[in-house]
């Protein structure tokens, strides 16, 4: 490659880095003071693009092409900033002391709501941006033409960085923000009203995302996929740079921008893999990112989770009834319901295995879809590419998922809290992009189709029983393990790593094994899902599935053993019955999540249990959930 091409590519990378920095700086600013990892930040970016698209026409026609476009961008940024304020005041302010899992899910709820709101307001069609007057042309650099707007973008990042730096270092507000980022309580002691400060930080953070979205619009049409793409990139940037560090965000934006610009030349199909691989490597070498600091408080999520066995005879009765219904269901229910029930069983196992590592093991995973999807792909590829028998395919699913989980687990247990969750997400996204981009092997976007059970097992009822049997065995095994020394040791590690270390227990080693076990169980579910649906596609590895699994746990009750099973089944049926009724499934789900997080953090089973004590743990004991208490 010659020099001019090299320079051009570098400039393109830096222009993208600018845009990335705008988003990431807002995200990292918000995390710095509030310690909340805001999934909705990508949604703010998307809203910025749509807001710009809405106000651009009227403002430009009113004020003319010279200043109109820029005022439109600013108006979009302010509008999005105000939306950020609403989100902070109405939702996040109530969650500052809640466990990470609830915070993440709440912001994920906002993501879902915004997605449907955007469709409702602007429709599915993308809105192509204008060419900004005055920046329509191109300049010639080393003999290659380079768009003026790209050049403008290239400068925006450093300009905003300089502006932020001045704001943070030369104003009283900035001094207070930096102080609160270091030590919230001390700022409180000195008379700083945190609630007000946080609201202003959210305004600025959201406005920056909105500005980035507005500025991106001329480069990329406003569309409904912007949020997910941007939030993932912004996460990567903030994690590489160090959560809470603006300078780190700039540095990481440049690294990622250039990596994408040049990576596309070296590995045209695997830029995403490259990006996430860089993140994983950086975190291995520098656990808190390039310029980050160790997280001040290591919050033990869900610390007082109880996993007592079902205690009351009513619980045993409830079990017997549930099992009986499961056994006779295919005899009277229509095919459609039986298929749905099969799917419900599969997802119950996914949620159950996830909850095993989250609640029992204290490992917050936001990438459980990786192992579900791996199992599904392993089964499909075994059948399609290698002509394996279905039995072998169903065996390959947990084996592959388990082995990969073992490797991933080895990586992630060296980190804790939010960095650990981010790493699990990163690994899941790597797999997702592999599935997307390695077309020859995975079928790419279309996935692999035509994978069915042969003979008798292809019948709906038979397949239902097969799924029930194997997923049931997996659930029963994990259930037993929870009450075996291994499960107790995991809980011990979650309750007090300090004490474990002082009685000879290597907590990490147990966590890795638990992670592999849970991954393998999710693989079983994935294998059965493949044959149920007759194929696989990359969406099985997506963040949505990971989030769904967490929502199922939350819905059923994170702190109970049966909760995730109930939640998985309830979620599957709810989704199936609500989706045909409304086009706004995501809106409904988003609202459900937020209601759950704010009002029923104990979930269905936890709620019943708190009233009746049916499912273990006597009522007379101390409050069951740290979750509920922390919310209060």
């Amino acid at each position, binding site marked *: 490659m010659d020099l001019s091409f090299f320079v051009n590519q570098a400039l393109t990378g830096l222009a993208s880095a600018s845009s990335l920095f705008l988003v990431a700086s807002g995200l990292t600013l918000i995390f710095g003071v509030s310690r909340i990892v805001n999934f909705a930040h990508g949604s703010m970016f998307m809203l910025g693009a749509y807001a710009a698209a809405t106000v651009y026409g009227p403002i430009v026609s009113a004020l003319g092409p010279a200043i109109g476009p820029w005022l439109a961008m600013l108006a979009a940024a302010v509008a999005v900033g105000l939306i950020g304020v609403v989100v902070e005041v109405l939702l996040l302010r109530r969650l500052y002391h809640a466990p990470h899992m609830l915070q993440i899910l709440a912001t994920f709820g906002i993501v879902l709501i915004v997605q449907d709101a955007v469709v409702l307001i602007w429709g599915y069609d993308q809105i192509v941006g204008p060419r900004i007057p005055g920046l329509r042309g191109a300049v010639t650099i080393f003999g290659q033409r380079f768009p003026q707007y790209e050049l403008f973008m290239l400068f925006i990042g450093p300009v905003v960085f300089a502006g932020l730096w001045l704001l943070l270092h030369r104003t009283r507000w900035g001094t207070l923000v930096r102080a609160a980022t270091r030590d919230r309580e001390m700022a*409180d*002691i000195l008379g*700083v009203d945190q609630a007000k400060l946080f609201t202003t930080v959210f305004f600025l953070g959201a406005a920056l995302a909105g500005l980035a979205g507005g500025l991106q619009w001329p480069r990329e049409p406003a569309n409904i996929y912007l949020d997910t793409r941007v939030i993932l990139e912004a996460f990567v940037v903030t994690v590489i740079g160090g959560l809470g560090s603006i300078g780190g965000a700039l540095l990481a934006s440049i690294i990622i921008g250039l990596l994408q610009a040049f990576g596309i030349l070296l590995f045209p199909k695997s830029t995403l893999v490259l990006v996430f691989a860089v993140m994983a490597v950086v975190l291995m070498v520098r656990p808190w990112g390039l310029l980050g600091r160790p997280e001040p408080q290591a919050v033990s999520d869900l610390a007082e989770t109880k996993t007592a066995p079902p205690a009351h005879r009513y619980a045993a009765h409830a079990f017997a009834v549930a099992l009986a219904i499961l056994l006779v269901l295919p005899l009277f229910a229509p095919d459609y319901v039986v298929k749905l029930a099969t799917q419900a069983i599969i997802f119950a196992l996914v949620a159950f295995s996830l909850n095993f590592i989250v609640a029992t093991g204290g490992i917050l995973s936001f990438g459980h879809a990786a192992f579900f999807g791996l199992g599904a792909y392993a089964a499909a590829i075994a059948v399609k590419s290698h002509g394996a028998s279905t039995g072998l395919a169903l065996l390959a699913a947990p084996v592959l998922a388990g082995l990969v989980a073992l490797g991933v687990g080895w990586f992630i247990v060296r980190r804790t809290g939010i960095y650990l969750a981010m790493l699990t997400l990163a690994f899941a996204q790597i797999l997702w992009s592999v599935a997307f981009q390695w077309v020859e092997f995975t079928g790419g976007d279309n996935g692999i189709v035509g994978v069915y059970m042969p003979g008798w097992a292809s019948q709906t009822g038979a397949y239902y029983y097969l799924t029930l049997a194997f997923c049931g065995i997996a659930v029963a095994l994990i259930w037993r393990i929870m009450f075996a020394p291994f499960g107790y040791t995991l809980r011990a590690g979650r309750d007090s790593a300090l004490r474990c270390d002082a009685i000879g227990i290597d907590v990490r080693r147990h966590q890795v094994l638990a992670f592999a076990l849970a991954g393998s169980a999710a693989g079983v579910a994935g294998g059965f899902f493949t044959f149920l649906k007759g194929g696989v596609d990359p969406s099985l590895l997506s963040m949505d599935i990971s989030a769904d699994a967490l929502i199922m746990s939350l819905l059923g009750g994170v702190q109970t053993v049966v909760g995730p099973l109930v939640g998985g089944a309830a979620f599957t049926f709810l989704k199936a019955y609500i989706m045909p009724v409304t086009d706004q499934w995501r809106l409904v789900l988003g609202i459900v999540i937020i209601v759950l997080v704010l009002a029923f953090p104990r979930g269905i089973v936890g709620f019943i249990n708190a009233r009746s004590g049916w499912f273990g743990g006597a009522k007379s004991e101390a409050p069951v959930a740290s979750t509920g208490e922390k919310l209060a």
Partner: protein
Amino acid sequence: MADAMLSVRGLNAHYGRAHILHDVELHLARGEVVALLGRNGAGKSTIMKSIMGLLPRRRGRIEFHGRDVGPLRPYQISRLGLAYVPEERRIFAGLTVLENLEVGRRAGEGSADPWTPERLFALFPNLGERRRADGARLSGGEQQMLTVARALMGNPQAILLDEPSEGLAPIIVEQMANAVKALKAAGLSILLSEQNLYFAHQVSDRAYVVDRGRIRYEGRLDAIMADENIRRAHLAV
């Protein structure tokens, strides 16, 4: 005590399941310097944190200027004119000396002569020389001065000083004692916790002896210095 600026009655506090404070009662009058004496772990810091609303579980009545501060958040208590200087100093790392002071700045009610960085640098000359230095890079003594100065920037009427002499070189302890006297002269009420009996004796009017979460004795410093029994039982080894 009718003219008490700060009154604490029946204060009980817990850390987790540990009952740390038992029925603590103490008063601080306008312009008075009162010491809390006791060994480490006696409960002195817990008393101060409870007053500032930093412990979730506490019972009892805490009044500042006759107003019940029990339900207030720390920032609200601070804004009433009651400052707190924690034992661990808690300097904001990454912020300069001047910026640390800025975080504490708040116009005092009816304060005719508000504290400014320049006035504080006159009180603590070492700080003035390092005004642009990162707070994290200061020596222990300088950090102690900064944390006191930062609290004064809020123009408080009363200040809680937790172990102001701890871990400081003798010459710095001397400076700190002089600063406390200067603050008293300026009309501030000061409640300070101390293990160093001689430091407390230099600066305070009265003292409470704290042991095992209870107030064991109240009186003048001379009396405590002279009483071998009190010293032996609650302060010395």
